[in-house]
């Protein structure tokens, strides 16, 4: 290995990790300097991650590892699966940073906010590139720590209470996960991701232990991925500023949980072994329950962000149900939804933020006639909503198509029914919003209007929204091209089944 191959994962991590202390130390007023540092770090990171994509595509390894103590190793490695997540987070970090600069323009404590924002993205990258469970949990907990100040950014009593709830859930989940990881370590040494033969090779007497450990790992991770009954923190945490919600829901926290579940199922236990042990079916059921529960709860929410939050609860479990189906198409669906849900959900939260920041709209029933006042935001909102429902050609359709094929292939036909019902529920809570936006007339003034003529809202807020909406469409339309998320996911999934 040459130096570049060793340094690359570290460089990717440190671009945002080193940006953090610089941003912390900048005075709140120096907005230009902070924005320049933020954006250049985001762009450098995107370029580096793209470079790694190309490298991995050409068969180059990027890896750094050293022993921390005994046989316990710190490993950062770029593999195809990790890069998917890394790509998502570095792309969306760029857009979210731009958006956040516009959104938080006149709030206080901006240096603190952007500092933790950078640490948060660094931990997401660490999670993506982690090469074993030990490295994974280092960044997984760092993510909890760095998102807490973001969630409680406004510092009001309501927000602080939500922050408490957030910590109670995530730290307890983290403790359970740690227990599972240490137990696995005590039983089987240090299983690197992809070293699937190791657990299967253990003597049969270890099987019951492996089942308990699987339950511990999944329960710990399910807290962050907001699976029922561990989802309670997510709807509460939507009191955070819109860019934070976008980050939490689309890239960072829930995705870290879902990504961890993929790693455990796919790279630690291995699908074959997990299926053989009968561990996948309970996971399918848990994910199905979450999908239906989240969609049903979203129906009755009258705050836009709360409705979106319950929608996240439901959508993230699409990833998990996909991976738990013992079929390549199911795995592909799960992996690709990691990206697709991120793109669409970030768009939806951006739009919700635009409505709130420009017109003072927070409730679903205030949306009447916003289509005329803010056409571009509303088009983006529509695109992303249709994607969530599963209308072609937006990205969400690809997921549901793959998922259906996977369920049929694996012979678990009831999953198709679950997806169909969930799709109808999705339509039932997204379409009324679209109806209000486009077809209902506005009566009276907006609750709290700010004008940004000639644009409908601030350019900092508008362009990232449009960009992510375009990406959601592109991911669906161009699903057949070599570097599209769908194609990349399918290749990982097929590689798993055809060694």
């Amino acid at each position, binding site marked *: 290995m040459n130096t570049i191959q060793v340094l690359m994962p570290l460089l990717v991590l440190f671009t945002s990790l080193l940006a953090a202390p610089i941003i*912390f*130390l900048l005075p*709140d007023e120096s907005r230009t300097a902070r924005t320049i540092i933020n954006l250049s770090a985001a762009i450098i990171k995107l370029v580096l991650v793209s470079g790694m994509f190309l490298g991995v595509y050409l068969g180059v390894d990027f890896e750094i590892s050293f*022993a*921390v*103590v005994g046989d*316990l190793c*710190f490993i950062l490695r770029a593999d195809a699966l990790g890069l998917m997540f890394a790509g998502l987070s570095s792309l969306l970090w760029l857009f979210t940073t731009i958006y956040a600069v516009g959104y938080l323009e006149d709030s*206080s*404590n901006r*240096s*603190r906010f952007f500092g933790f924002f950078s640490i948060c993205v660094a931990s997401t990258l660490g999670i993506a590139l982690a090469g074993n469970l*030990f490295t994974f*949990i*280092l*960044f997984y*907990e*760092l993510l*909890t*720590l760095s998102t*807490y*100040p973001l969630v*409680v950014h*406004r*510092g*009001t009593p309501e927000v*602080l209470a939500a*922050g*408490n709830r957030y*910590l109670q859930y995530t*730290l*307890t989940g*983290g*403790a359970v996960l*740690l*227990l599972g990881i*240490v*137990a696995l*370590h*005590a039983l089987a040494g240090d299983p690197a991701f992809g070293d699937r033969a190791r657990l299967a090779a253990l003597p049969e007497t270890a099987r019951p232990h492996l089942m308990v450990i699987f339950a511990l790992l999944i329960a710990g991770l399910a807290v962050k991925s907001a699976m029922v009954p561990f989802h309670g923190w997510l709807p509460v945490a939507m009191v955070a500023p819109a860019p934070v919600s976008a980050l939490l829901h689309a890239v960072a926290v829930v995705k870290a949980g879902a990504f961890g579940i993929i790693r455990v199922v796919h790279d630690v236990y291995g699908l074959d072994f997990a299926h053989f042990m009968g561990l996948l079916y309970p996971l399918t059921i848990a994910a199905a329950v979450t999908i239906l529960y989240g969609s049903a709860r979203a129906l009755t929410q009258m705050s836009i962000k709360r409705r979106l939050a319950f929608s996240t609860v439901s959508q993230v479990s699409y990833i998990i149900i996909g991976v738990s189906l013992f079929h390549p198409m199911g795995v592909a669906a799960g992996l690709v939804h990691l990206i697709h849900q991120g793109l669409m959900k970030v768009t939806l939260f951006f739009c919700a933020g635009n409505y709130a920041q420009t017109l003072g709209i927070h409730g679903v029933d205030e949306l009447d006639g916003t289509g005329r006042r803010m056409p571009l935001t509303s088009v983006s909102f529509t695109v992303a909503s249709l994607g969530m429902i599963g209308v072609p050609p937006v990205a969400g359709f690809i997921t549901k198509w793959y998922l259906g094929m996977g369920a049929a292939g694996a012979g678990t036909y009831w999953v198709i029914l679950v997806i169909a019902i969930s799709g109808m529920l999705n339509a039932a809570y997204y379409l009324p919003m679209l109806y209000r936006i486009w077809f209902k007339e506005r009566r009276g003034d907006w609750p709290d209007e700010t004008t940004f003529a000639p644009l409908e809202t601030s350019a900092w807020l508008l362009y990232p929204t449009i960009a992510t909406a375009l990406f959601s469409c592109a991911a669906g339309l161009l699903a057949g091209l070599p570097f599209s998320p769908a194609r990349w996911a399918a290749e990982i999934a097929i590689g798993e089944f055809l060694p």
Partner: protein
Amino acid sequence: MTNDPRLLAALPIMLSAMWALLTLLRIPKGFLSLAPAIVSQSAAAYLLGAYVHSNGTIRIDLSAIGMPAGAMLRIDGLSVLLLSATTLIVSACAFYSLGYFHLHRLQQTRTLAREKHFWPLLAILWGALSLLWMSHDFLTTYVALEALGLSAAAMMVLSDRPAATTAGLRYLFYMLLGSLCFLLGTGICYGVYAEINLELLARSARPGGAHFIAMSLMSAGLMLKAAIFPLHSWLPDAHSNAWTPVSAVHAALVVKGSFFVFAKLWVALSPEMEAAAHFIGWAGSAAIVWGGLMAFRKQHIKQIVAYSTISQLGYLLLFVPLSMDAGERSAQLAWQGVWLLFFSHAFAKAALFLAVDNLVSTVGRTDLEGLSGVDCYLPLSILSFGIASVSIIGLPVSGGFTAKWLLLHSALLSGQWQWVLVLTIGTLLGAAYIFRVFKYTLASGLRTDCNFNMPVSKEIVALSLALAAVLLGMFPGWPLALLGTGLDTVAP
């Protein structure tokens, strides 16, 4: 000169004595006095470390200089680590004190009048600690513990607050009581084995009634000195009222000195004492939970930090049951875990005390509500507090995390599930009381009443100590390699 181990071993103590003398005469003052002390002590620690690294454990027979037979100094990897950590932490706190006194000078408090007593006492404390880390027989250990306790008690009453005097005297009383218990125990031990050297005792120790009573007395005395639950009552008041650098050194090193002796005793003299070992484990668990709960209830931030010490000391005791009735590997993991926790707690707790003082002296209040919005003004101190508390809670990346990983691993390997539960609950309690502090500092609030004369050195020192605790978690390989195994520590 560097070839004579006797000289090398005497060096840290002689340097401390010289510095004590110079500070008594007050030539030179301030930084000019401190810098040579720090440099020479670091050099001494380095030379000792290099010697031990290449030649192995140093043993020095003290009977040659008129002490009774069996008295000896023993410098192994653990002693070297402890000496290095002491040099780092005492130097950092001494350097911090310069800024601390400077700030008090600006505010014209009465603290100044007693500053002149601080430096000689610190020098004596430093020497006593060095002696303790090298001692390996009951007599030298007792002498070192007494010198340590007396100088520490004297430093505690330096603060002119009435509460500090009361707490300091109370500490003195408990400390003397602890010494008495320890002395009684060693007396019985001597009566049974006619031996004061731990290496020789380890070979001849056999279970029996007198042995049990001796161990109980010595353990109780040391636990009282180390503020182990339920013998901890002197600590919270003492630590929250003394001068901050005093509290920091005390929590980081002085209480741990007694734990060091305690750990050595249990490794050397514990054949077939499983039930007692489990009792110690449960006492530690009670300390973890009680300390955590009390820290969660307190309104004054220094008391929160003090109760956190009680909770953290409880973790250290878990190594007794873990290394007792288990396989070799799990005993080794427990030994490594407990010392890693020892060191990371030392750095993190010192950082916590120093960072808290920065916050408190800026807002002029010690209660949590007074801290709202302080992070805009002291981002570095809040950052230090945050980094240090990550290690205290045991979250990654930190020495506390890696240590807890090792302890968890050891508990799982030896099948002692109860400690797994204790470690998990302790971690969550730690998170609860630490994040309660953050909840207040992150609360929105604009301050106008702050004192903005914070010397930057105070902030830098706190940050460096906190970072040391983090680095220990990422790169524990070097210290753990020096540490060896538990049995090495008493093996002849």
